[in-house]
C-alpha cells in the first residue's frame, strides 16, 4: 500500500479568518428569513446525549422529542439523534416510522486512545446495531506528532468498517492548536473518505467556533473544486442559541452556497439548542417570549 502524503494546501491567516467569520455575525436576519432559518436549523440538528449517565429511558425521551420537537404546531423533525454505541438499538427502536437517523460516536470516543482493531470492531458492532451514521474521532496525538499517513490509514479503515453507514470524522479542533492544523486535518479526513468532517466531541472546552468552521468550509470547497465530491460539515459543541445557529447558516450560504443548505451536507451537533430555536419560533409567531417552563426538557 502506498503511503499517504499530505497534498499542498493553502495556509490560514488567523487574524483575517477571524475577522471574516465575525463579519457573518453582522448579517441581519429578520421575519421570514429568520423563520426559514430556524426551521432549517431544526432539520439540520443532530440532537445529542453523550453522558456516562445515559439510560434507555433518557434516549427514548430524546427520540420522541427528535421526531416531534413541538406539540401543537407543524414542526419538522431533527436530522438525527447522536448517542453512544450501546444505546443505538434503543434509539433505533424508538425512531421506527420516522426519518430521523441514528448517529453513534464510536472509536473509543472521545479520546480515540485505544487499539485500532478494537476501534474498528466498535464501528462494525455499532453499525450492526443499526447506526446510520458513525461519528469517529481522529488520533490527535498521532496527528500532532506529524503521523499524517497513520491518520489517513485509520480513517480509511474506519470508512471501510462503516460499510453502508455514513462516516463523520471528528477533528477535535480545540486540541489541534492552529487553524493551519485544522485545515490539514480536514484535508486528510476528506482524502481518506470521510462523508462529513466534524469539529468537536463536545468534551473539550473549546468546541465549535465560527472561524474554525470557516476553515473547514474552505477546505471542503477546495476539495469539491478538485474532486467534484461534496463533503458535509458538522460543527458541534457550544452551539446553544438560535442566533448562533443562523450565523452558521449565513456562513454556509455565503461560503459554500445553496447546495450545502441541506441536512445531507450540513448538521449542527447540539444538546440544548433545540429549545432555544423553538422559543424563537414561538416568539416569531406570537410576538412574545414564553417562559422556558413551556418548553419540554427531555
Amino acid at each position: 500500500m502506498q503511503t499517504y502524503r499530505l497534498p499542498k494546501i493553502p495556509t490560514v491567516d488567523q487574524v483575517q479568518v477571524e475577522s471574516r467569520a465575525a463579519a457573518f455575525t453582522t448579517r441581519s436576519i429578520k421575519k421570514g428569513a429568520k423563520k426559514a432559518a430556524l426551521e432549517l436549523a431544526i432539520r439540520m440538528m443532530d440532537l445529542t446525549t453523550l453522558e456516562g449517565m445515559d439510560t434507555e429511558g433518557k434516549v427514548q425521551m430524546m427520540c420522541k422529542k427528535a421526531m416531534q420537537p413541538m406539540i401543537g404546531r407543524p414542526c419538522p423533525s431533527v436530522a438525527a439523534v447522536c448517542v453512544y454505541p450501546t444505546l443505538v438499538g434503543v434509539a433505533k427502536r424508538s425512531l421506527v416510522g420516522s426519518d430521523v437517523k441514528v448517529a453513534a460516536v464510536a472509536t473509543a470516543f472521545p479520546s480515540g486512545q485505544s487499539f485500532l482493531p478494537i476501534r474498528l470492531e466498535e464501528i462494525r458492532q455499532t453499525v450492526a446495531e443499526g447506526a446510520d451514521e458513525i461519528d469517529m474521532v481522529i488520533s490527535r496525538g498521532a496527528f500532532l506528532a506529524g503521523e499524517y499517513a497513520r491518520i489517513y490509514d485509520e480513517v480509511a479503515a474506519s470508512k471501510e468498517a462503516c460499510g453502508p453507514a455514513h462516516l463523520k470524522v471528528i477533528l477535535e479542533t480545540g486540541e489541534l492548536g492552529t487553524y493551519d492544523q485544522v485545515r490539514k486535518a480536514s484535508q486528510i479526513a476528506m482524502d481518506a473518505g470521510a462523508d462529513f468532517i466534524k469539529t468537536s466531541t463536545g468534551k473539550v472546552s473549546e468546541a465549535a467556533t465560527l472561524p474554525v468552521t470557516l476553515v473547514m468550509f474552505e477546505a471542503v470547497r477546495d476539495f469539491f473544486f478538485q474532486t467534484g465530491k461534496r463533503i458535509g460539515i458538522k460543527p458541534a459543541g457550544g452551539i446553544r442559541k438560535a442566533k448562533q445557529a443562523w450565523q452558521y447558516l449565513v456562513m454556509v450560504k455565503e461560503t459554500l452556497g445553496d447546495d450545502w443548505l441541506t441536512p445531507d451536507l450540513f448538521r449542527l451537533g447540539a444538546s440544548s439548542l433545540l429549545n432555544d430555536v423553538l422559543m424563537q419560533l414561538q416568539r416569531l409567531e406570537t410576538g412574545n417570549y414564553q417562559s422556558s417552563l413551556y418548553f419540554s426538557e427531555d
Partner: protein
Amino acid sequence: MTTKTNEQAHSRDMAGLLFGDLWGYAPSPESTDHVRYAQRYGHFINGRFVEGKDHFPSINPATEEVIAEFAAADEAEVDQAVQSARAAYAGVWGKMKPAERAKYIYRLGRLIQENARELAILESMDGGKPIKESRDVDLPLVAAHFLYYAGWADKLHYAFPGATVSSIGVAGQVIPWNFPLLMAAWKLAPALAAGNSVVLKPAETTPLTAMKLAELCQEADLPAGVVNIVNGAGRTGAAIVKHPDIDKVAFTGSTEVGKIIQRAIAGTRKRLTLELGGKGANIIFEDAPLDQAVEGIIQGIFFNQGHVCCAGSRLLVQESVAKEVIQKLRLRMESLRVGDPLDKNTDVGAINSRAQLDKIHELVQSGIDEGAHIHQSTCNLPSRGFFFRPTVFTEVSQSHRIAQEEIFGPVLSVLTFRTPDEALKKANNSPYGLSAGIWSDKGSKLFSVAGAIRAGVVWGNTYNQFDPASPFGGYKESGFGREGGLHGLKPYLEVR
C-alpha cells in the same frame, strides 16, 4: 421572500457552486424615521447658519431623489467665512489654554458618538455607501479621530521634543465625497487640536453630514468662527484656496485638482498638504494564505464601492497561483450583495453620482476595447439609482488604461508576475503611490517588499485598516503630507 433583486437564482456557471435564493435574507432596511434635516441649507459662518444663494440639489444616489438643496458660496461669502475664522483665531481660539481647547474637541467627539446612528443613516442616504460601513467603519473612526487629537491638544510640546511649536492661523480645507464625515474629521481634528481655525468645504454631492456636524459644533458651544463650513463646488473651493488670508490649504481629492491647487498657490506663503488619487497594488505571493488574501482583495476593492483613494485596484498575483486566486475571487464576488445602501445586509451600495457612474462605464469600456477579459457578478441591480456590478478584469497588462488610471469604482484589474522583483517593479510602475498590500506567509519576504514599495501606506496580510494613530498619505502624484498620528499634527504647526 421578496429579495429577488438581490438574489435571483444565479446560473451555475462558475466552479459549480450556486449562490441563489434557496434561503434568502428578508429586507432589513435601517429606519429613517428619526433622522432630521432641513430642505435647504446655506452655510455655517461665525457659529450661525446663514442663508446663501445659487442653490443646487444633493440627491440620494440610490433613489435619484433630491434630499435637500445647498447654496453655493461665491468669493464674497468665502471671504466672510475666512474673516470669521481669522477673528476667532486671533480673538479666542489661538489664545485659549490648550487644555481648554481639548475639552471642546473631546465634546465634539462625544457628540458624534451620541449622534452616530443618525449621522450614519444620513451618510448612507447622501453618499450611497452601505449602512453597515457607515455604521461600523465611518462613524466609529470619525469619533476616534476627534478623541485622539483632543488628547494631543495640550501635549504638543511633547509631540515634538526639543522644539517649540505654535499654531499657524486659518486653514482652508476641501474634502471629497467618498468619506464625507471621516474626511471632515481628518481635517478638522488635527487643525483644531493644533490651535488653528478652519474654513471647510464639503463635496457638492455629499454636503449633508457636514451641516449636521455644524449643528454639533453649536451644541458643543465651540466658539463662533473656529469652524466655518461653506457649501459649493469647484468655484467655492477655488475661492478658499486663493483667499489671501488663508495660511494653510489642505485638500483631499483628485490628482487633477491637486495639481491646479498647487499651481494656484505657487509663490504664496501658504502651506499645502495634498491627499490625491491612487492605484494601489495588492500583491499575492504563492505562499500567501490564499482564502484570506482573496477576502482582503475583495474588501480592498469593493469596500465603499471602490470609492477609496487607497483601494487595492491593481491585483498582482504570482503566476503559480493565479488560476486558483481568480477562481476564488470570482466566486467570492458572486456572494456580494449589491443594492439598497440602507439595507443592513448590503455589501456594495450605490455609486456616488451619475458623473462617477459615467466615468466608471467609460473606463470599463476601455478595458474591454483594449483586450482585457471582463468578469462581472451576475447579481441583479436595482432599477433606479446609480449602481455598478462588481467587476474583475483578467489578462490586463501594464499598458492598459485600467491598469494605470484610477477608476474609483468597484473594478479590479488583475495582472500576474513571476518573481518578487517583478512584482515590486510592477507595483512601483505607476505615477501614484498611496497604498499597497502584500500577502505572504513568509515574514522576511513581506518586510523586504514592504520596504521597497514606494507608497505611503503598506499593509501586510490585511488591507484598508485605519486608525487615528496611524499616518496616512502618498508618494509621487498621490500627494504629500500625512494625516493621522503625530505626523498629522505637523502640517498644522509651526515647529521651531
